């Protein structure tokens, strides 16, 4: 049971209706639909930040799943475990991102290791990121990528806290996928 009532299709406000046009819009939309003017700007932001962009899909999924697991967000960790499977991450990589095994046991690429260290530091904090962590990242990524990836961590934290605080339920369809893939 979620912390707030999720808005059903029949009660979807006018600005929210496009998100319900194809069926269940998901718990995040169904919660944001309570404030349609926020939904109207939040969803394009989320879609742009977490969706297809100049950064490749695998790299983005590393960041999103790692952040979600470190923040202890059940909803996002479950959802992005499935997304990681679909993106082609290996079982060992997913287990490491979820914090079940050490990261350096599953990842050997210095670029990805630098990114994961950066992700941990930005997501958890508190305070400034260690200079060595930033230096390792900047050695692997250009400034536009650093900006986009850092915002991706921050946006994922935003969603993690939103979903956790409101106890948004993972959809039955997603839970079935998780089980089928051998995850909880």
């Amino acid at each position, binding site marked *: 049971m979620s912390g707030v009532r999720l*808005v059903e299709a*029949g*009660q*979807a*406000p*006018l*600005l929210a209706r496009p998100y319900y046009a194809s069926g269940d819009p998901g718990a995040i939309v169904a919660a944001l*639909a*309570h*404030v*349609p*003017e*926020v939904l*109207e700007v939040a969803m394009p932001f989320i879609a742009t930040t977490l969706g297809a962009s100049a950064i490749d899909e695998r790299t983005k999924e590393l960041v999103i799943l790692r952040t979600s697991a470190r923040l202890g967000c059940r909803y996002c960790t479950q959802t992005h475990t499935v997304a990681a499977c679909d993106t082609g991450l290996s079982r060992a990589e997913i287990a490491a991102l979820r914090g079940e095994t050490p990261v350096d046991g599953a990842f050997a690429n210095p670029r990805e290791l630098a990114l994961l260290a950066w992700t941990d530091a930005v997501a958890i904090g508190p305070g400034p990121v260690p200079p060595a962590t930033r230096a390792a990242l900047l050695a692997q990524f250009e400034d536009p990528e650093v900006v986009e990836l850092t915002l991706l961590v921050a946006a994922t934290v935003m969603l993690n806290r939103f979903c956790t605080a409101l106890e948004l339920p993972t959809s039955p369809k997603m839970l079935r996928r998780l089980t089928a893939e051998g995850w909880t």
Partner: protein
Amino acid sequence: MSSVAEAVRDGVLPGRVWLYANYHCNLACTYCLTESDPRAERRELGEQRMLTLARQAAELGFSALGVTGGEPFLLPYLPELLAKLAAILPLVCLSNGTVFTERRLERLRPLAELPAQIQVSLDRPEPEANDAMRGPENFRKVVDAIPRLVERGVRVRIATTVATVDDEERERLCRLHRRLGVPDTDHVIRPIVRRGRAVDHDLGVDAGPAELPAELTITTDGAFWSPFGPTVHGGRLDTDLLITRTTLPLRVPAAALLRLVQARPPGTDAQLNIQ
């Protein structure tokens, strides 16, 4: 000129902004959209907020105001507030017409000199049929109140809300309102809308954005498409016609409403003239 003002000028957006002054009422009509009754959650907008909304409506280019409820005249400050609002924009205030004491009627005199109308509900030309939907003594109180408003120079409009009305009954109703001092041009007949309490009594027609004029409507819960939007059913506010939760600054919901109206495919603004 603002985009909202242009839209009002061009007839793209209706010019009236509705303000839900409150949701509680001394009556509990069978088809009430807002499930109003004496114990309903008041959802009172408040005097200062209504004045602010009216000023911003005028600044944005809207051309008229509507005040509705519940029964707005249960609010002690309402007669004087209506005069202040009418000094900003032409105004219609809806009422069930049953709470007009002599004192309250006297306090309404200033409206005679202002662009203001009181719209009173009267559904049937005989007491039995009328009161079956609107409660005991309703007919008597309304036909007593209307001439007393008219004789003070206050413009009165009558709204008849019915599922069906045949020609003979319509003619009896018209003879009645003319006798009370209300001309034909100030009488509107509209269908019951299947929202609120009407759902439980299986009354009314379904109405959504295609049927309802896009009149910006402000309540304590947000901004809605049409005064038929912020209905209550089973104690819960309907949000299918909610536009924004933000009501101030008014330009936020006004701009959102305009976007919605402009996004409609051509030809989908056909209406059943539900007003």
